[in-house]
């Protein structure tokens, strides 16, 4: 089976008395593409800096391949970083930038030359050797930053919002590029972003963070389809987030209307949170659904329409490909397995979720 290449154990970190990470634990497997996802200021960069060795945790351990590297200086870790602002060396040519790590390690020039050529080929920038970083576009600089990191053959590549500064089209191209690179190189990627779409497209595993806590770890499908709490549901994709009561196993009441669902084990008459994705709310003819509703607005969104409909005292967000007039009288229907039940936060710490 796949082994853990990196483990974070109970990492805590505070700046000037303010807790940024609290008791964070995370296992990362070899060859995984792991994404740290969360809103601005939730501690993603800090986590990455602790893995890279740019910051030391107040407590807890960083274990790489079984060895404790918490206090090992950056330059001795088999980890390389692609920085958010590229951090290319402005006074060096592209070739010197990429060769920097290899020259430090005193590799011979023939090897270096071959490696630089290979790296430039990998990022599709052949012939740029003699150029200076400032003569390249943002996207090109970004790719050089990636090339500079991977020639060192790190065991783990850390990427801190590497596509943050690029426009949408270039971003999507680079996402594909990164996935291809990851496959070709066969190394572990730890990727930081606050863009949920990016995380869903690229990752094997997503770690959703908020205010220094891990909210959920799982595959993109898990995170999207079965969010464990309201924060995750709200942060990932669009969602109808509703307060409800679990009457008994497989039966939930939303605003006094009963829905069958598939979740069990929440107890009887327990308050819960419910998430229903807009594409899972189905529109039917009057009399055929679970409850009646009236269309109050419709917006064209390209691939689909976004409809807001009022029913049982709730504004429902619905994604559909069929057009409905405003004021249309419809019924809504939701399949039992599309109703996702979540525990309400119990402790103070968990309540953090709802502040956003």
């Amino acid at each position, binding site marked *: 089976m796949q082994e853990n290449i990196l483990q974070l154990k109970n990492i805590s970190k505070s700046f000037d008395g303010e807790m940024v990470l609290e008791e964070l634990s995370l296992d990362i497997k070899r060859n995984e593409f792991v994404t740290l996802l969360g809103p601005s200021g939730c501690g993603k960069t800090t986590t990455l800096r602790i893995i890279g060795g*740019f910051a030391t945790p107040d407590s807890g351990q960083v274990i790489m391949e079984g060895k404790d590297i918490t206090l090992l200086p*950056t*330059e001795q870790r088999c980890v390389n970083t692609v920085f958010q602002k590229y951090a290319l060396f402005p006074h060096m040519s592209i070739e010197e930038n990429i060769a*920097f*790590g290899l020259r430090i390690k005193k590799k011979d020039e023939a090897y270096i030359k071959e490696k630089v050529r290979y790296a430039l080929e990998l990022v599709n920038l052949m012939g740029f050797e003699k150029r200076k970083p400032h003569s390249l576009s943002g996207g090109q600089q970004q790719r050089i930053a990636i090339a500079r990191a991977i020639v060192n053959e790190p065991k783990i590549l850390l990427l801190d919002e590497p596509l943050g500064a690029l426009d949408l089209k270039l971003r999507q191209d680079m996402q594909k590029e990164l996935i291809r690179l990851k496959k070709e190189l066969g190394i572990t990627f730890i990727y930081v972003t606050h863009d949920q779409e990016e995380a869903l497209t690229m990752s094997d595993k997503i770690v959703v963070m908020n205010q220094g806590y891990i909210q959920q770890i799982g595959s993109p499908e898990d995170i999207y389809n079965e969010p464990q709490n309201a924060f995750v549901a709200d942060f990932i994709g669009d969602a109808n987030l509703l307060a409800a009561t679990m009457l008994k196993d497989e039966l939930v009441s939303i605003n006094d209307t009963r829905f069958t669902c598939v979740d069990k084990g929440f107890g009887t008459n327990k308050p819960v949170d419910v998430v229903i994705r807009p594409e899972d709310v189905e529109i039917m003819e009057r009399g055929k659904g679970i409850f009646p509703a009236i269309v109050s607005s419709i917006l064209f969104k390209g691939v689909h329409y976004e409809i807001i409909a009022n029913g049982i005292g709730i504004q429902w967000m619905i994604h559909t490909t069929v057009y409905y007039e405003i004021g249309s009288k419809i019924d809504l229907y939701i399949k039992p397995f599309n109703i996702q039940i979540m525990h309400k936060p119990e402790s103070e710490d968990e309540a953090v979720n709802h502040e956003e």
Partner: protein
Amino acid sequence: MVKLKDFFCKFYVAIIMLFLYAPIMVLIVSSFNSSKSRVLWGGFTLEWYQQMLNSSIVIGALRNTVVLAVGSAFFATIIGLLASIGIDAMRKKEFSIVMSITNIPMLNADIVTGIAMMLLIFRFMPLGFSSIMLAHITFNIPYVILNILPRFNQMDISTYEAARDLGAGPVTSFFKVVLPDIIPGIVAGFFMAMTMSMDDFVITYFTKGAGVNTLSTMIYGQIKKGIQPTMYALSTMIFAVTILLLITINLITLPKKSGKNKPR
């Protein structure tokens, strides 16, 4: 209307220029005047320059001035660079405290600094050449910091981190990545320190021992005996060197435009 405004603008600038540079122009012209009179033009001559360069007093003072300028600038640059590294790493609050403290010597009246240094240095060593050197190094440090620190602030710390990330130790990273970024500040600081040292009179006057002279203190001494045209020649030369140094500093600190659009 516009023309009138334009005229006054130009007139104003001309007046300023006149007040600023007329005395120096008079000095320069006088240094080439073969008549000893301060008001009559007796024809062009280089005699005063010749006399000046043949005078052992002048040459001795010149040597002292140059050694002091280069030496104090050198040591002040090293100390100032190290100080800048330290100050840059400080937090915001400490940073502003330390910066105001380092700025005090620059704003302080020279005479206060001079007397204070004399009192302090005299306790540990006889006043002489070394005491001037110490004093010059001391008052030069803030000027060096003033030139280097902004470079650190502008610099993106992530390039240093990137170098560490790629396997370079702290020292190698500093020399390979940080230094090239701040070298213009270092050179500018060095030249500014040299200028300051060459220009200084008051502090030198208080910290020098008997018989040791820099150009400025020597000129002061000579003037007491009655002013000689050789002093005009000497002052003109000092002015020329100062201007040269200032131009150099400006050229270094000016943002470089070339290279960016070089065709390939």
